[in-house]
């Protein structure tokens, strides 16, 4: 999948401001960003649901605008919203989808049975879809997208609203699909979901701010993340700043990164002139990476803090 110079405008609003991206065959690729960052727009363009204002995108070598049907034949898609007929059984849903893609009835029927079997829905598949659990319904959506044995799978916030267990099961299916050579492109705003990806693109305000493996992204921050709660955060921030530690975040928490937090903490805690109420040290999460790159968390739409953090630097205590 190759994307270059992609721009999408809605009236005066620029949802995508020039996206360049390459996704390899067989890769699991995540698009991670907060609501309104342009995830769904980029996703829709790649999945042929919308046309870009400028720039080009090719999926499996086919242009998403001029060779739309070729892309559609080769792709499977799971939407954020349900796209199954709730009152029909899972089996009927899959059968019909097969027919829409031009499979003969017997092939479509066999394919439906195989898919239900492989996703562990053999029994549930005969009940009306509305009687299934949330996790089963999402698996049914996945099955629907797999009817045509697509080479590339698009998932748009596919696990929205699922509990942790159901999400885990869902992603283990996705992983095994990728192992069989399919490309998987998905959007999410759950960090832990993005971790299953081979590579992640972080998107913010219509631009890609970083593309890398989860590990490499986290290594960008280096070392570890320290979070502090103190009796006087402003005072502590100022003091840490004088020590060369750049603090990120705001409100009731102080956060900074350091190449080796374990080594500096004992001294730091002893010398800090304000009372420390709570200390946390952990390896950087994708959330921290996002925060470091954009000055904003993934979850919210908080304004950019005025004391916006620069790129992480190796600080000396």
């Amino acid at each position: 999948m190759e994307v270059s110079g992609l721009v999408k405008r809605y009236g005066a609003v620029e949802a995508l401001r020039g996206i360049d991206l390459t996704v390899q065959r067989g890769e699991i690729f995540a698009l991670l960003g907060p609501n309104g960052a342009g995830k769904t727009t980029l996703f829709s363009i790649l999945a042929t649901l919308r046309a870009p204002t400028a720039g080009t995108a090719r999926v499996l070598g086919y242009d998403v605008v001029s060779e739309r049907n070729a892309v559609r034949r080769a792709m499977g898609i799971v939407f954020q919203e349900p796209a199954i007929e709730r009152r029909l059984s899972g089996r009927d849903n899959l059968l019909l989808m097969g027919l829409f893609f031009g499979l003969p009835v017997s092939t479509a029927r066999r394919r439906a049975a195989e898919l239900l079997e492989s996703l562990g829905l053999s029994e549930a598949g005969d009940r009306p879809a509305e009687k299934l659990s949330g996790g089963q319904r999402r698996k049914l959506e996945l099955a629907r997208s797999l009817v045509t044995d697509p080479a590339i799978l698009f998932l748009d916030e596919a696990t929205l609203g699922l509990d942790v267990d159901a999400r885990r099961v869902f992603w283990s299916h996705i992983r095994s699909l990728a192992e069989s050579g399919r490309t998987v492109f998905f959007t999410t705003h759950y960090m832990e979901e993005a971790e299953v990806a081979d590579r992640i693109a972080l998107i913010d305000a219509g631009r890609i701010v970083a593309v890398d493996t989860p590990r490499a992204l986290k290594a960008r921050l280096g070392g570890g993340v320290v979070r502090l709660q103190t009796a006087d955060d402003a005072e502590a921030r100022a003091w840490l700043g004088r020590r060369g530690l750049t603090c990120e975040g705001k409100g009731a928490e102080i956060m900074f990164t350091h190449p080796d937090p374990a080594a500096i903490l004992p001294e730091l805690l002893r010398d800090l002139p304000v009372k420390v109420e709570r200390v946390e040290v952990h390896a950087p999460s994708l959330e921290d990476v996002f925060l470091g790159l954009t000055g904003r968390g993934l979850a919210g739409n908080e304004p950019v803090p005025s004391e916006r953090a620069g790129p992480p630097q190796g600080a000396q205590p």
Partner: protein
Amino acid sequence: MIRAICAIVYLDLKRAWLDRARLIAGLAQPLLYLFVLGAGIGGISRLGGGGYSRYIFPGVLGLSLLFSATFAAIVIVFDRQIGFFKAVLVAPIPRAAIAFGKITSGALQAFVQALIILPFAPLAGVSLDFGTVLELIGTMLLSAFVFSAMGVAVAARFTSTTVFPVVSNAVLLPMFFLSGALYPLGNAPHWIQVATYFDPVAYAVDLMRGAVLGRYFFPPGFSVAVLVLLIGALAWAAVGVFKRGEDDSSLGATQFRWRR
């Protein structure tokens, strides 16, 4: 293409069957016209030469066809936002197949809805001989396709299902009233007679009334020709509805939020 059309029709009919209670509920409005309005006005009217109910029976069939076909089309609006149809729209199916499938399924649903009113004919004073039934059924099928194509071409363009009551009052009822379903067009003011020429429902009702009473307002051949031409034109327009869905459609785009 044929397979895709069949799949769409099969899906819709299966859903309609699950919703078969609606068929019964759909009887309420036509029967209300037929037996309440019919009986009420029947006391002061000599139309139809055997009770007013007999006179408006063809009109009531037209009413039923018109409303059920439009309703089937409105469901598309809902379906393309959340529902199976969303997945259908991204399948590599010719847009024409989607349009024809939807027109056919809407027409069949409307036809069945009208068909179950037919047995009430004797109660309304309409005697059903074989020829009449054949003529009625033929016209019903033809007009079911016209109204369904009209529904898909127009109603399916809306982006919200809440427009149905508006469409129903602002478009369907005027079409129904102007069609001469409730009164003879021959005695109507001149402007209504002119407006009638632009009302597809009028041709359908006139053909069915001709079958029952043996008197036509338009020449029957002309009516059939108009209806057939309308199917062609509206089907062509309906394909456009799904073509339009290709670019910035409501497909997946409904969720777009820009908050920064």
